């Protein structure tokens, strides 16, 4: 884990502690995916709505804090703004509002929505003859929702090769309804699917940048909930929606710093 990934995670921990909010483990599982996307797509933090930008949608909206801290790292706003998370009057909610935060393309929260909207954007760009690309990040838990697979079928049928689905396979549904063999499932639904190490920014970028033709792409990112802090990984369900107190923050920051670079 490099310095940037650690810095983003440290901010997540400090803001979760400060605010009393945050889905820390699920935020920790997507940081490298977010970085890979933002280091591959066309965006401009100084002009977030510019016409030719590519689109990123966080369909698993409860990981908003992870996205906020990543957007701050890539220049959309100062990280200090995010410390108001969840406060009445703050722009930063536990689920993002596209009218309040630069860089947020869709207000999400309820699972299974972002992928369909992303498909509509991708179709729109193709009909316009536009080269803009759309990236959408969904979770394995989210993939319990039928709308995910409904949309997957449609994207393949419409040949939306400007759409990339990033599948955060952090196995959050292991206690409930596991989504086994996601690569096989996406392939059988007609998408070009591949599996990568979800914590290797370079590996993810390599597949994100690799051109595909005629089919949408599903990148199954093998990830670990709470990646970077063994306490979170070990007790992932207890930490699903917890924020650390002062003592726990020290422990988690210590664990994060000890994670090999």
């Amino acid at each position, binding site marked *: 884990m490099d310095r940037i990934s650690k810095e983003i995670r440290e901010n997540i921990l400090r803001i979760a502690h400060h605010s009393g909010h945050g889905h820390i483990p699920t935020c920790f599982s997507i940081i490298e995916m977010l970085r890979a996307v933002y280091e591959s797509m066309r965006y401009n933090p100084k002009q977030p709505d510019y016409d030719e930008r590519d689109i990123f949608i966080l369909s698993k909206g409860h990981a908003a804090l992870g996205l906020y801290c990543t957007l701050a790292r890539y220049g959309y706003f100062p990280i200090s703004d995010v410390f108001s998370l969840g406060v009445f009057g703050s722009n930063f909610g536990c689920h993002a509002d596209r009218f309040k935060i630069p860089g947020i393309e*869709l207000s999400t929260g309820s699972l299974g929505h972002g992928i*369909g*909207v992303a*498909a509509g*954007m991708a*179709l*729109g760009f193709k*009909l316009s003859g536009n080269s803009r690309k759309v990236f959408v990040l969904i979770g394995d838990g989210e993939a319990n929702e039928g709308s995910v697979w409904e949309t997957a079928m449609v994207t393949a049928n*419409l040949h939306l090769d400007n759409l990339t689905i990033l599948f955060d396979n952090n196995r959050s549904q292991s206690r409930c309804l596991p989504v086994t063999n996601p690569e096989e499932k996406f392939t059988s639904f007609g998408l070009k699917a591949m599996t990568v190490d979800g914590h290797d920014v370079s590996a993810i970028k390599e597949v994100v940048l690799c051109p595909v033709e005629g089919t949408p792409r599903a990148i199954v990112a093998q990830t670990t909930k709470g990646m970077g802090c063994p306490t979170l990984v070990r007790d992932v369900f207890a930490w699903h929606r917890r924020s650390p107190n002062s003592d726990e923050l020290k422990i988690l920051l210590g664990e994060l710093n000890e994670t090999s670079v």
Partner: protein
Amino acid sequence: MRRQFKDTAIRLAEHDDKLVLLFGDISVFLFSEFKELYPDRLLNIGICENTLISMAAGMSAAGFHPIVHTIAPFVTERSYEQVKLDLCYNCLGATIVTCGGSFDYAWDGATHHCYTDLELMRMLPGMEVMQPGSKKEFDTLFSTCYNNGNPSYVRIAADEHGLDLPVEFGKGVLIKETRGANLTVATAGPLLGNVLSACSDLPVNIIYFHTIKPFDRDLLERFAGTRIIVVHDAFGLFEAINATCSVKAEYHGLPDEFCCYYGTLEDIRRKLGLDAAGIRCAVETTLLQDGNKGSQDAQTT
């Protein structure tokens, strides 16, 4: 009215290359002409209403004027959250055009009846809700709303009220005003035909709404001092009236039970007391309760 949808779409598409139709595998044959003229702008997406709505939101974000078309219960009741969040909460404009509202698919039974759509859509912030009762009303209302940037719901009906009325989005129509009448009958959509047959010679006022939201407060307030009976084969109008201003309104419409009958639309309306005879009986009963004989001096517009 569905043919009018096709004709209106063809007319508008000629001048608007952002008009795109997303179909849930209905009306495809009817729209063959549209498909021939604009092959890239009619996409029969599939029987997947959640995705239809979400994709419409995405297409709106990409600069299009998407029109989703499928059967009313499946897109409003099943995909309510997609309409609520992807369209309304995200302020992404799209027009949902449905058929099969109320009991238009009478013979298909309760799975295909849909009387909640208007009220469900009305409750969503930012949503415009229309129940045209004629081809002319559909044409005017749809043309007004489809590209205004707001989410809109337009219900296509299997029948029509048979009147040629003035149409303006958001405006109700005064059908009949009776001097001194203390009872006003309010209705919406094609049922106006039965209401007029039932009440044309009764000492009542009749007001009609093709637009459920935004609601014509001015017209309602004019009759707010009278007792109001809402005659409607759906939910939505009664609630809109009560939400608009303080009125004494009652509802002659649907019971709190599924309609487990087949047959025709007329059969179902007769069973529910929404044929002309049933409506007349309800209105006369209300008149007698009030002791309201009013004046027979009716002026029909």
